[in-house]
């Protein structure tokens, strides 16, 4: 069992080397003795790019809790392999082989449940936002190599709206205004698109209003906000909260929050973090892109990835973030 444990122990992050899975060099994980009998070996030797159905057990990263928790099989949510991308117009290379693995959360019950939060940090210009935009399918960027699989499907071949309907949500760093289209109409359109996909009947404006009203409390916004045009005349904090509201209404399997904390004051930040925390259950996962630790104090990250020069160079847990704050990115890249 122990050897299987060693084999099975990996974390959802990769280095720039070509082998898909490696161990985190210097983080301290707590080994748990597993009693679950569904442990299986990973086939690490596979060089093919078939989606790995990971059913091995993940080591818990949250050291404080859940000893002896019954682990269930984990499913891969997002797998990025050697993704390279350029800016469509200038053909300038921005992403240089990003590798990332995001799994669904785990946990046997609500009390001890944890969900997986990945944080991506890095210097300005390291490619963090580009990465998220490429995942979402922004036309400004062109993928030149690598693969991305989302819930087992090839994400790169899907149109942006298909990606969204598949469960990928991205909150924009600077959400743009859409004068003339009200928030409630916009949300209604997006929600009905999802209902159509699931084969459910669409909601009319009144029923939709009934569905959406309780969600407003999650982001601490008033009802009159729904009649305003999308992001028109909104302050920075309101725009970010609007993004989270959209997330609350539409739901997602993987939410990518691109610098959700930029431009937020202390209270707004707490609201947003509280909202994000309350929105997730076991099968969802969050990818946060940020510069600062502040947000990570409210939304505890499972893994922190450092991105530099268009690839993820290091992965660690919250302790790494503290080092980062005190000594800057240089300290991390040296180690």
């Amino acid at each position, binding site marked *: 069992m122990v050897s299987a444990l060693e084999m099975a122990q990996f974390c959802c992050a990769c280095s720039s080397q070509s082998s898909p899975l490696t161990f985190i060099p210097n983080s301290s994980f707590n080994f748990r003795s597993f009693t679950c009998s569904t442990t299986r070996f990973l086939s690490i030797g596979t060089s093919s790019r078939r989606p790995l159905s990971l059913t091995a057990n993940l080591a818990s990263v949250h050291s404080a809790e859940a000893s002896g928790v019954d682990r269930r099989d984990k499913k891969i949510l997002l797998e990025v392999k050697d993704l390279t991308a350029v800016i469509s117009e200038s053909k300038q290379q921005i992403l240089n082989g990003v590798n990332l693995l995001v799994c669904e959360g785990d946990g046997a019950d609500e009390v001890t449940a944890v969900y997986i939060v990945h944080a991506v940090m890095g210097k300005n210009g390291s490619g963090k936002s580009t990465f998220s935009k490429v995942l979402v399918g*922004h036309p400004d960027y062109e993928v030149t190599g690598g693969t991305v699989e989302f819930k087992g499907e090839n994400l790169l071949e899907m149109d942006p*709206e298909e990606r*969204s309907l598949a469960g990928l949500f991205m909150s924009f760093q600077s959400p743009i205004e859409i004068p003339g289209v009200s928030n409630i109409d916009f949300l209604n359109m*997006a929600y009905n*698109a999802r209902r159509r996909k699931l084969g459910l009947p669409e909601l009319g404006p009144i029923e939709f209003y009934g569905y959406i009203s309780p969600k407003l409390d999650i982001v601490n916004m008033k009802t009159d906000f729904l009649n305003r045009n999308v992001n028109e005349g909104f302050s920075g904090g309101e725009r970010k909260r609007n993004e989270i509201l959209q997330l609350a209404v*539409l739901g997602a399997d993987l939410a990518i929050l691109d610098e959700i904390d930029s431009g937020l004051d202390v209270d707004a930040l707490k609201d947003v973090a509280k909202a994000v925390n309350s929105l997730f259950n076991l099968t969802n996962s969050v990818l946060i892109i940020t510069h600062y630790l502040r947000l990570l104090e409210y939304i505890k990250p499972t893994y922190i990835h450092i991105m530099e020069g268009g690839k993820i160079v290091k992965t660690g847990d919250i302790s790494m973030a503290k080092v980062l704050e005190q000594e800057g990115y240089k300290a991390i890249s040296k180690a």
Partner: protein
Amino acid sequence: MAAASLLSPHFLLNPKLSIQTSASKFPIPKSRSTPRTRVFSATFSDPFVLQIAETLEDSLSSSSSSSSSSSSSSSSSSLLLQKLRDASSQTVLSTAWPSRKDESFRFTDTSLIRYSQVTPISHPPPSIAISIDTQFPNISIVDGHIVNSLSNLSQLPTGVFVGSLSSLSSETISKRVSEFVANFEGDLFWSLNGLGTPDLVVVYVPAGCRVEMPLHIMYHSVEGGDIGSKKLPVSNPRVLVLVEEGGEIGVIEEYVGGGENKCYWANAVTEVVIGEGAKVKHSYIQSQSLSAAHIKWTSVQQGSSSSYELIEVSTGGKLSRHNVNIQQVGPDTVTELSTFHLSVGDQTQDLHSKLVLDHPRGYSRQLHKCIVAHSLGQAVFDGNIKVNRYAQQTDAGQLTRSLLLEPRATVNVKPNLQIIADNVKCSHGAAISDLEENQLFYFLARGIDSETARKALIFSFGGEVIERLPYSLIRKKVETQIKALLEPTLKGSP
């Protein structure tokens, strides 16, 4: 010989030349009841214009002879109308039909009218099956004639007069009206209206009177030729809105009629005189037949500290032209113009506006938006703002945005500011584009497909103007209309 100006090589009479009545090619009809001296010279006038002038005069004289004897009050009104007709006649006969070489018609093709057989509509249709669905005090003008049986003016406050000039009994109002009749010179179409209008509709608001409910003037065009018949019945409705000092009123002008296939020509004139400190909110909705010609003049005179707001939504007409002229006659005025033009078919939507500021501290904002959604569609905008010498501390802004949705759709915009005063704040901007990529992507990123996104964005483009319509019922009606118009075009777009 007439002075040939650079702009118009056609014959133009030099006004100093003496003009005699002469044996003309066109005989004076004998059925006229009141003899008039016709002042024209056949050799210098444009024959087509002359022909229209003739038929208009004939139809008026025949209808007045067949109507009942006039009462004393209407004699003063008929004098006023006569004055108007005479002045118009002079101008008409010395003006040529506009050609593409005239600056003001450079982009506007008037051949729809020019090559049709123009016949005036001398009476409203005998049986009118028109539904009036409005909650506001309203008056109906059918084919240029006021129809009192369809009007409902019970909710207006006392002192306010709405009705035809011939039914005006108050001397004071009559006197006031006469000060403003025939003292502005528009173009040929203005004068044709003056010549051919059967009666003048007067809306009079006495000093200090705030009219709570807006007045809804509905213009119906019923008579029309079928496509291909070349028959173009013309109507000449004319309205004068006179608001005395401190008065306030909202006016809704709605032009409807005929469905898609009726050909007619609505040649309308609306004059607005706003006294000191008075306010007028003018909504103008044009949804006439897609085969019709619609030419409208709006001439406004703003007294000091007065406020004029125009919100226009024009979607109908094969040829639709709106001429707006606003003259400031006192300082501290506020002028807000918001116009939205939509061409979903083989249509031309034209706005020529002119704002003349001669007094200080005027504030004006103009927003013009147009959508051309057909490859043969066209939109024209000429926005002129004249800030003259004494109009110091003027704050004037103008913005026009056009959306071209089909290849070969055309937009011609000419914002122009002529500034003489030196202490002013003026700005103008024009943008012509397709839908914004970023906004479209935002929709896609939320799972909304491209077609729905385009529909929403196109509709919201006009929304900025439509939401300025002050009455929610009207706004909803217009929104439904626009949605219905945009629907079939979008099915075809990629």
